[in-house]
């Protein structure tokens, strides 16, 4: 059972929808179509199969969590969804569009509706934290400067970094970088948010706050795909979980279903507390 959470970070349900955010019925693909679908995705690096015939679908407004030991292809799966990697075989659909076939401009349109938190945050180190969060807004909205700054500050406040707008990424701790990366990923209020180990490197309280933020985003209709080793976090945030092992999906279902899995590795993994 999840502990009670009283996070100081919170999404604001009354916040108006910004740049390009659309109601789910208006989204490409329409209602009923999964927000994300992978069909038989296979990817190898140096003759090592990292993903082997992976298929999954994620319904709109739900959270899908990818579990697995390090190096089992979880981050690679996220990169396929946003089109940073192309599968050797298989197809990846986002809102009904096959991102493996899209031209650059069409892919950019799809990416505008997505946010991506990288495993190491990947903040632009020549920009301040605030500029990092403001960057997607500058590129993809015609908002005046004061509105961009206000929105960037609000996003940073959501992740508990309200006072760090003018700091450089090098001046932040690992956990703070992670939160700044999450703020940047949320800047355009994306329909789909891909988060790679959101609570890694965070203290338990801040980790809980981030989990609450993700739950609040999900309630607002954001589709989440989360990679984590933190099982309590996965139980709290995710509607459906899948476990990857040696490139294959060895289990999929709700947390309770994975708890009762026939596979001993899955049961062991689900019993672990995880280290974030």
């Amino acid at each position, binding site marked *: 059972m999840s502990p009670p959470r009283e996070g100081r970070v919170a999404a604001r349900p009354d916040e108006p929808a910004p740049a390009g955010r659309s109601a789910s019925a208006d989204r490409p693909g329409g209602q009923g179509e999964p927000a994300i679908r992978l069909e038989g995705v296979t990817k190898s690096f140096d003759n090592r199969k990292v993903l082997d015939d992976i298929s999954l679908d994620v319904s709109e407004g739900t959270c899908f969590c990818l579990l697995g030991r390090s190096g089992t292809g979880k981050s690679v799966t996220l*990169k396929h969804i*946003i*089109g*940073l990697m192309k599968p050797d075989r298989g197809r990846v659909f986002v809102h009904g569009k096959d991102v493996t076939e899209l031209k*650059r401009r069409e892919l*950019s*349109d799809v*990416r*505008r509706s*997505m*946010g*991506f938190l*990288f*495993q*190491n945050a*990947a*903040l*632009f*180190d020549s920009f301040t934290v605030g500029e990092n969060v403001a*960057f*997607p807004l500058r*590129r*993809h909205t015609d908002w005046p400067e004061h509105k961009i700054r206000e929105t960037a500050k609000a996003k940073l406040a959501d992740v508990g970094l309200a006072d760090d707008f003018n700091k450089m990424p090098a001046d932040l701790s690992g956990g703070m970088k992670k939160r700044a990366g999450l703020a*940047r990923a949320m*800047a*355009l209020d994306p329909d789909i948010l891909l988060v790679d180990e959101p609570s890694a490197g965070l203290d338990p309280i801040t980790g809980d706050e981030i989990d609450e933020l993700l739950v609040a985003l999900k309630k607002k209709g954001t589709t989440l795909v989360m990679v984590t080793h933190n099982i309590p976090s996965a139980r709290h945030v995710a509607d459906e979980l899948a476990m990857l092992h040696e490139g294959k999906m060895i289990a999929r279902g709700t947390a309770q279903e994975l708890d009762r899995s026939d596979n001993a590795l899955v049961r062991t993994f689900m019993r672990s507390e995880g280290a974030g």
Partner: protein
Amino acid sequence: MLERVGAPMLAALAGVGEVSLFGLRAIREAFRPPYEFREVVRHTFEIGWKSTPLIATAGFAIGAVLSMHTRASLERFGAEAMIPAGLAMALVRETGPLVTALLVSGRVGAGIGAELGAMKVTEQIDALEAVAVDSFKFLAVTRILACVLALPLLTTIADVCGIIGGYVAEAAISGMSWQLYFNRAFSLIEFRDFIPATLKTAVFGMIIGTVACYLGFTTTQGTEGVGRTSTRSVVMSSILIIVINVVLVRLIFFLFPVRS
């Protein structure tokens, strides 16, 4: 034996081919919207303005040294009066452009290679793509264009500082007046000497920018790879500049023949 010599040669040629394709893609993308004017201006300032002290100092020193060497040679023939003209001709036609390009390749090429290499290994380039920004256009095309724009300007600064350096050396040795030096220096120089030689540095700028960006974008193996990219960027662009300079000089002589 043939295999031992041939394999590295083929690898080097393949590398040059890949850099050339990268450069051609940059040229094509430079003419396609959206245009990144602000980034081009920012990088031109970074590359141009911040290289100015180095280029001006080097140009001044080379002008002074060339003047002293030229005097030592021409004195034997009693042709000291030709020193300013000879110096100006050498600086404007060859020494200024080549030295500027090599210095910029050291300062800027290494910097761009290391910066983009670090961005690559820390996934910042992927992060740009993830926020729907064309990383090639935003990072590579803008820097290549900035190099192309900055090199001719920096070369002009090197030429001017070199001529001033030559004057200072000449004035110190022979007491020649500035007016006489200036008149003699520009007695043989025409715009047809200055324009092609200076514009060829735009090609050098293209080489420096393209090589550095290509190596930055293809960096692997963490911080060690970043260091290697930085070094390779300087070595590869310097070699290409020196080799392509031969072709460009031949081309300039063909298009603008020297009048007898």
